[in-house]
């Protein structure tokens, strides 16, 4: 053996180590799927917030906004984020207001409850899979370390059968053992970075949802007490 490449190291490692590295590779793949998917969802939610807020505050009639949403929903079934909250609240508000027996406070309460439910559902959608990223970020270094320990054990067991303890005998084993730690870190670092980033943007989006809910309920409140 006159040269050692990372791939060779992986191929020459023991079975336990290979299993560890394979699981790390799978973890890394899944976490990258989650990262990309969450990125798309978060971006869509953020752009949805800004575009809907623009339309909402443009002075458009609320019932017309609602009808527009219904049309989009019928066309391609994609109504997301803030608009869902608006639609849930507005729908409940209109439905309760048409029943004359219900008093104004009950109408407001019903609309707010509907918005809270929609908000919770939206928030749940946004933070789905994020715990998985957190788990990968904190666990995969340990998994890699476990693989390294296995590999170093293997190397030292091999050393015991040698008459002469030269560096050349242990070096490849230890190098391939360290490969496992490297892969653990490779899986963990992006996961941790993405988790932190996504929780931050999640906070931003949910706080804007809460703000919108408050503002919209104040608008509804004004409307119900004006006539």
């Amino acid at each position, binding site marked *: 053996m006159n040269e050692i490449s990372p791939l060779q190291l992986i191929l020459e490692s023991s079975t336990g180590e290979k299993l560890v590295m394979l699981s790390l590779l799978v973890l890394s793949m899944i976490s990258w799927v989650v990262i990309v998917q969450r990125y798309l969802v978060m971006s*869509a939610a953020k752009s949805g917030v800004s575009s809907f807020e623009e339309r909402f505050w443009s002075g458009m009639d609320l019932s017309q906004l609602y009808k527009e949403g219904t049309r989009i929903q019928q066309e391609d079934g994609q109504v997301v984020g803030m608009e869902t909250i608006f639609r849930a609240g507005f729908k409940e508000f209109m439905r309760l207001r048409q029943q004359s027996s219900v008093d104004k406070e009950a109408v407001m309460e019903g609309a707010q409850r509907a918005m809270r439910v929609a908000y919770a559902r939206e928030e749940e959608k946004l933070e789905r899979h994020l715990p998985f990223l957190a788990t990968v970020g904190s666990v995969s270094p340990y998994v890699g370390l476990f693989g390294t320990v296995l590999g170093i054990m293997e190397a030292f067991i091999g050393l015991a059968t040698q008459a002469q303890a030269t560096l050349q005998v242990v070096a490849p084993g230890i190098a391939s053992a360290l490969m496992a730690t490297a892969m653990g870190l490779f899986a963990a670092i992006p996961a941790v970075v993405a988790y932190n980033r996504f929780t931050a943007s999640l906070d931003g989006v949910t706080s804007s949802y809460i703000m919108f809910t408050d503002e919209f309920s104040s608008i509804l409140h004004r409307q119900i007490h004006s006539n």
Partner: protein
Amino acid sequence: MNNAFNNLIIFNGYPLAVVVAVGLHVLLLAGLLYLQSNNEVEALELVQPTVITALFIDENPQVRNERVIERQRVQRQQEREEQQRAAEAAAAQQAREEAERQAAEQRAREQEAERQRQALVEREELERQRAEQERLRQERERQQEAERQRQQELDREQAQAAERQRQEEAARRREREAAEAAAAQAARNEFELVQSATGLIQQLVQEHWSRPPSARNGMRAIIQIRMLPTGELLDATITQSSGDAAFDRSAENAVYRAAPFSELQDLPINVFNANFRSLSLIFEPQDLLN
């Protein structure tokens, strides 16, 4: 609402995410492969050193035997030369003495003739008496001559004896040389035996030698081992320390672990006695990377 993102997040964006993640990992693997092929281009020439050399030194029995034989041969040669020189000197001395004696006789004869002539001229009447005396003298001379001849005979005999002795000497020498040649042949056979046995011991010890981390190139420890004809190790002592206690200990342990050298049982006992009763091993690492 029909913006780019809405198109991307069909089925919550999962298809795209999977494609991106798989692509990323494939890219990473391709990078590794590229690194590997790059490595191959500038392949580092790792020097693979010879594992170990445990040398058998000075105490090497073969070398010692050869040296002793050589010394004996030189000594014999010198002795022979000495004898030859002595014999030559003796012969020269003899020849000188012979010549002196002959010269003396010659002188005596001349004086005698002179005296005869004078006697002839001066004393005619005493001639007869003289003649008588002359006869007596001649008689004596004859006796002397006989004596001399006997002496010469004796000398010749002595010379012949010396010659015979020289021939005998030569014959003996030839015999001795033949014996030496036979001994050399035997020594060569022995040499091969000894060499294979030493090689074996060296290899065994080498296999059992695990050097401590403190071992450095150029360290040198000499261990003297004593063995029984069965190949069992009697004891091993450090005759020359390397200066590093761990290194010395490792060398000593190697010897103890390599023992017994059961292959030594097959050696003829005289070969064993001459070569393997006691043996010195040099431990000298030469392949370390420091």
